[in-house]
C-alpha cells in the first residue's frame, strides 16, 4: 500500500498526523503493570488528545531504551505479558487514535511456529493495529517485514537518527511509511530537561522532504513540544514521561490524560507561534 508513500493513498497513520498537525504521539508499555491497566491508560491517553498511540510489546533485551522504559518492560514481563495477551488487549481497544506496536525484531520473528515475520503482521492487522516500529531494524534488514506490512496495509515506521545522513537518509526517506520518526538526540529513550540542538539540525536536514515528521527521544513537557513543533516537526512523540506517571502516580489514568492535554497544548502553542512568525516575516526562519 505504501510502496511509494509520496504517491500512494495516505495510511491511517499519515492521515492522523497530517489532519491533526501538530500531532501528539504517545507511548506506553503494554502490560505495565498489567494489561487491564494498560487498557485504561490507553483510553486516557486517547481522551487526553493523543493523535496516535504507540504500544510497547515488551522484549527482554531492549537495547534502545533508557532506564525508564527498561523498568516498564521488566514490570510488564514480570506480570507475564505475552504477544498473544498484547494482541488480545488491542482486539479490545477502541480508540480514536490509531495504534502502533513498538517492539524488537526477535519478538516479531518468533510469533508463530517458525522464525518468520508474517504471522505477527497478520495478527497485528487482524487486531486493528495501524503500524509497527522496530527500534533494532534498520532499513537494510527490513525487506521481509516491509513486504509483509505492505501486504497487510500496515505502516512500518523508520527512525531517522542524528547520524542518518547522505545516501542512507535518501534511502530511508524514500521508504517512509506513516511518518518519519525523528530521533531527537543520540542515545536511548528517556525524559530530558531540554530539547537538543540535534533536533533542530535533524529537522533542518529533513525540511526538504515532504513527509510527516514526528520527534521523539527525550520529550517530556509541553514546552518541549512547543519548541519542537516550532522547529518544524509535524508531531511530537512522548514515552518515558508517561511511564513515569504509570509508575509513580496515585491515579495514573487521570494524570496521563492531563499530561496528554498539556503536551497537546504545548504542541499547538508551538504551531501558533509558527503561524505568528510566518505572518510577521515573509521568509520563515528555522530557529
Amino acid at each position, binding site marked *: 500500500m505504501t510502496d511509494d508513500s509520496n504517491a500512494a493513498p495516505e495510511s491511517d497513520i499519515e492521515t492522523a498526523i497530517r489532519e491533526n498537525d501538530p500531532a501528539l504521539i504517545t507511548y506506553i508499555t503494554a502490560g505495565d503493570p498489567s494489561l487491564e491497566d494498560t487498557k485504561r491508560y490507553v483510553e486516557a491517553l486517547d481522551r487526553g488528545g493523543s493523535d496516535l498511540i504507540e504500544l510497547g510489546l515488551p*522484549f*527482554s*533485551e*531492549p*537495547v*534502545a*531504551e*533508557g*532506564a525508564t522504559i*527498561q523498568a516498564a518492560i*521488566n514490570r510488564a*514481563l514480570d506480570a507475564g505479558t*505475552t*504477544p498473544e495477551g498484547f494482541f488480545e488487549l488491542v482486539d479490545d481497544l477502541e480508540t480514536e487514535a490509531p495504534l502502533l506496536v513498538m517492539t*524488537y*525484531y*526477535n*519478538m516479531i*520473528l*518468533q*510469533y508463530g511456529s517458525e*522464525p518468520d515475520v508474517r504471522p505477527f503482521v497478520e495478527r497485528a492487522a487482524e487486531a486493528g493495529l495501524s503500524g509497527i516500529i522496530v*527500534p*533494532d*531494524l*534498520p*532499513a*537494510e*534488514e527490513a525487506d521481509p517485514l516491509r513486504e509483509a506490512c505492505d501486504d497487510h496495509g500496515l505502516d512500518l515506521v*523508520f*527512525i*531517522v*537518527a*542524528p*547520524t*542518518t*545522513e547522505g545516501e*542512507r537518509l535518501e534511502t*530511508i526517506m524514500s521508504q517512509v511509511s506513516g511518518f518519519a520518526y525523528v*530521533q531527537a538526540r*543520540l*542515545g*536511548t529513550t528517556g525524559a530530558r530537561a531540554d530539547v537538543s540542538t540535534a533536533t533542530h539540525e535533524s529537522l533542518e536536514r529533513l525540511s526538504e522532504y515532504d513527509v510527516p515528521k514526528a520527534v521523539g527521544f527525550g520529550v517530556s513537557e509541553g514546552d518541549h513540544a512547543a519548541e519542537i513543533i516550532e522547529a518544524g516537526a509535524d508531531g511530537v512523540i512522548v514515552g518515558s514521561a508517561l511511564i513515569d506517571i504509570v509508575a509513580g502516580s496515585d491515579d495514573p489514568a487521570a494524570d496521563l490524560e492531563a499530561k496528554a492535554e498539556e503536551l497537546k497544548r504545548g504542541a499547538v502553542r508551538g504551531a501558533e507561534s509558527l503561524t505568528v512568525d510566518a505572518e510577521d516575516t515573509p521568509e520563515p526562519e528555522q530557529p
Partner: protein
Amino acid sequence: STFGDYGGQYVPEALMPALQELEDAYERYVLENEDGFMDEFRERMHDFGGRPTPLQRADRLSERYDREIYLKREDLVHGGAHKLNNALGQVLLAKYMGKERIIAETGAGQHGTATAMAAAHLDMPCEIYMGRTDVNRQRPNVYRMRMNGAEVNPVEAGSGTLKEAINETFRDWATTVETTHYVIGSVVGPHPFPKLVRDFQAVIGREAREQIREKAGRLPDSVVACAGGGSNTMGTFHEFVPDCADPRFANESSGRSPRDEDVDLYAVEAGGSSLEIDAEEGLAPNSATLSTGTDGVLHGAMTKLLQSEEGQIMESHSVSAGLDYAGVGPELSYLAETGRVTPVSVDDEAALNGFHRLSRLEGIIPALESSHALGYLEESHDELGDLVVVNISGRGDKDLETVLEETEKRDLEAAPDVEVFDG
C-alpha cells in the same frame, strides 16, 4: 545476511553509520593492510601480547588417551587468555579510525581486562560495562581493569550479568557513537563484528596449523575448542574450515583450493547442569546454544539463541561465567547448521574434572571455559582420531575460587582433596 541465513545488522538506526564506517575500516586496514595496520597489529601482538603461543604436546594426556594430544596455549597470551588478540586489534583499529574513546562489555571480566590492557597500551580512554553480579563475583578482574586506568561501570539491570552488560554498552554506544568505538568481545554482534573479531582471533588457528604440521608432519584429525560466544572457537577453527572435501568451505577463504586432509571441528558448549530447558521460568540450565538453541535475533545478529517460544531471551547457565551467554556467533551457527562444525557439550561436572585433570597431569591450570574442551576430550576421545589439537583458550587463575566451591559440592573423580586446601 553475512553467513548463510545468519548474521546481519539488527541495530538501532543511529548505529548504522558507525557500522558502515567500521566495515570500511575493516576492509581497508584489516583485509588490505592499509597504512601497515596488520603489520603493526602483528608486531604488537608479538612484543606486547607474547605471540606466537606454543603448541605443546601433552605427554600425559597423550598417554592417557592413547593418541597424540596437542594443546594450543592461548593461556600464555598477555592477560591470560586469547581475548587480547581481539581487544588489541580493535583498539588499534579504533585508533586508526580516529576514535577517541573505547567502550566494552564484559561478563567474567576477561574481555574487559583485555580491553583495558589494550587501551592502556595504546593510550585510549576506556570504559567497561559489567553486570553488578559479575562485578561482585569477579572482584580481581575489576581491580585489574581499574589498575589499567579503565572506568568500570556496574550495570544494575536484570540479573546483572553479561547480557545486561552488552545491552548497556549498546546504549552507551548509541549515545557516543561518533567518537567512540565499541570493542565487542566475541564473534557476535552486528556485521562486521563477527568477521572482524574472527580475523583478529584467527591467528590461533593459523599458528596451530603451521605448528602441528611442523611437529606431527600433518594436519590433525580433529580440533576441539570450547564455545560460548565463540571467539576462541572461530579463532581456532577459521584456518581449518577449508580443510575438508566440501567445496563450500574449501573456497571460503582467500584463494584456497580444496584440501586433501579432512579436519573435524568440535565446538564444545557448556552443558551446565542439564540440557533441558525450563520454559516456564525462562531459564536454561546450560549455555549450549548451538546444540539446543533456535534461530532468532539478539545483539545485532541473526543466530542461534536460547529463547522462549515467544522470543524472550533466557537466562543461561554455566559453571564457567565466560561461556554463560544465550547467544553464539552467527558464523558458528552457520558452520554448525551446514555440518562443518560439530556442536557438542559437556556438563559442569565434566568441565570441573577437565580442569583438575589438566592441572594435575600437565601442570597447566586451564580456564573453566577451556576445561569444557578437556571434558569433551575425556568423554569422546575415541571419536577424535589419532591426532588432536585442543585449544586452551585461557588460564584458570581467575577460576580458583569457583572451582573450589563447586568441587566441594561434588564427588569429582579428578579433583584433589579440597578439604585440606586452606593449609
